[in-house]
């Protein structure tokens, strides 16, 4: 918990707010204000191609249009498929990688540096590398099903190291004597893994899963560069469809409704995860 060193006087409170205010003002200006504006915009007809229409209030008509839109539902479906496959691949591979990283004794720094490089690369670069490798050796990108393979592979290549680093930190908090005791009791390696490692790694797994799910849910760069959402719209996720509605078709009202739906879904995912984790524990652990 926080330790307040000086007595909590009025001048102390004022100083705290003075220190916090500039950063908070920036956050309100660039994030909170805009999200409220997105909501307001989503209730209006606003088409930048037809400025003479003005910006009339139309209630929930934009939302109704989105919900009737086939392309929206398939984009949502694509996003779900991508989240489920990529996050499960990344968590399993990340766990294996973390256990390997935990075991090695020599050249730890070097190995960690090597596996961190893909994580730190711009997503655009990772996407181009994989697009080149796939294009130079197959026709997958013109196949609506196979086009998913490089998307998931590239995402796994780039983000598994991140998952592994988070899980490695979790592994290192496990008390080694538990394994020694299990060995004395004659438990197999697999039994030790399921009875000790997995349960004690649960918090780290949950945090990694939350971050990865939220990130995969808003996937944009990777798809924009690797498949462009294609062939056709076969791999188009929700963020890409929203972007196209806003900045290519210039339908700002409709795009704002899509944006609010993305926002609400992300919010629900985060709340669900935090509830699973325990809200207070989450805040205290994180801060």
């Amino acid at each position, binding site marked *: 918990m926080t330790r307040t060193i000086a007595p909590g006087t009025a001048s*102390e409170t004022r*100083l705290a707010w003075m220190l916090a205010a500039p950063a908070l003002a920036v956050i309100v200006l660039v994030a909170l204000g805009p999200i409220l*504006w997105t909501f307001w915009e989503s209730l209006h007809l606003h088409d930048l191609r037809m400025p003479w229409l003005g910006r009339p209030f139309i209630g929930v008509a934009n939302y109704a249009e989105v919900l009737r839109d086939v392309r929206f539902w398939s984009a949502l479906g694509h996003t779900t498929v991508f989240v489920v496959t990529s996050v499960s691949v990344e968590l399993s591979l990340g766990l294996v990688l973390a256990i390997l990283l935990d075991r090695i004794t020599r050249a730890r720094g070097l190995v960690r540096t090597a596996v961190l490089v893909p*994580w*730190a690369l711009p997503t*655009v670069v990772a996407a181009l590398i994989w697009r080149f490798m796939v294009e130079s050796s197959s026709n997958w990108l013109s196949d609506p099903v196979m086009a998913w393979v490089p998307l998931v592979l590239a995402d796994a290549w780039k983000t598994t190291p991140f998952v592994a680093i988070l899980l*490695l930190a979790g592994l290192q908090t496990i008390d080694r004597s538990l394994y020694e005791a299990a060995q004395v009791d004659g438990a197999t390696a697999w039994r030790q893994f399921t009875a000790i490692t997995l349960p004690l790694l649960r918090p780290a797994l949950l945090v990694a899963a939350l971050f990865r799910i939220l990130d995969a849910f808003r996937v944009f*760069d990777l798809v924009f560069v690797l498949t462009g959402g294609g062939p056709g719209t076969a791999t188009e996720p929700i963020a890409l469809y929203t972007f196209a509605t806003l900045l290519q078709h210039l339908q700002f009202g409709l795009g704002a409704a899509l944006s609010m739906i*993305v926002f609400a879904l992300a919010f629900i995912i985060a709340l669900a995860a935090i509830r699973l984790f325990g809200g207070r524990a989450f805040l205290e652990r994180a801060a």
Partner: protein
Amino acid sequence: MWVVVGVVLVPLYWTLVASLTPENRLFGTPSLLPGRLVLDHYRALFEARDFWIPIRNSLVVAGLTTLLSVTLGSACAYALARMAFPGKTLTLALVLAVSMFPQISIVSPLYLVLREVGLLNTYPGLVLPYMTFAMPLTIWLLVGFFRQLPADLEEAAFMDGAGRLRTIWEVVLPISAPGLATAAILTFLYSWNEFLFALSFAMGPERYTVPVAIALFRGQYQVPWGEILAAAMVASVPVAVIILVAQRRIVSGLTAGAVKG
């Protein structure tokens, strides 16, 4: 283990070799053993395409973003970590919530505002939107850092009659370099890699950042793969250097439980 490292690094090696291979042999049988290597693509990148422009843009935008968010964010983080004031828990929750915002959901109002005030296609027009992820990231990391600093030093300073501000300036700041460095490195990395905002708010090639420039490379007749891959290698150099120099700090920052992938 070395197999894993190999698998991780093969795509990068492939890219490096391809970026040095003449265009007409690029799509031949992929071979891990390079044949004749040429620097043509790199030369074309910097001479014909003037790739210095996006590099400069990225450095300026990522640099300013880092500077601004670490300066303002560290003050805020110190207050949140060490001082008691009403509304503190709410503020922490707010910062956490904003760090989970999907960028796409605020693209439209930011676009309209930036257009209104004439900041589309300018550096501030990218730095301000970048604050949406940089500021929560910095605050979050530094709150964690300040909390685990030993409080004795500050207590001693108070005993000696130093005020809060003087204590921060003379006692806390000098021992905060590791935390500030970690926050700065991660903020810089995220800003260097950012794509969606840069794609939306930088309208012309003279303001493209590196990721946007690479993603929008077009050739006259076909995809200029040689140059694209050379550019990809160039974009990776600063990142690789940062990782080499600061691997330990990055790992500690990531495992503070605060950073999104």
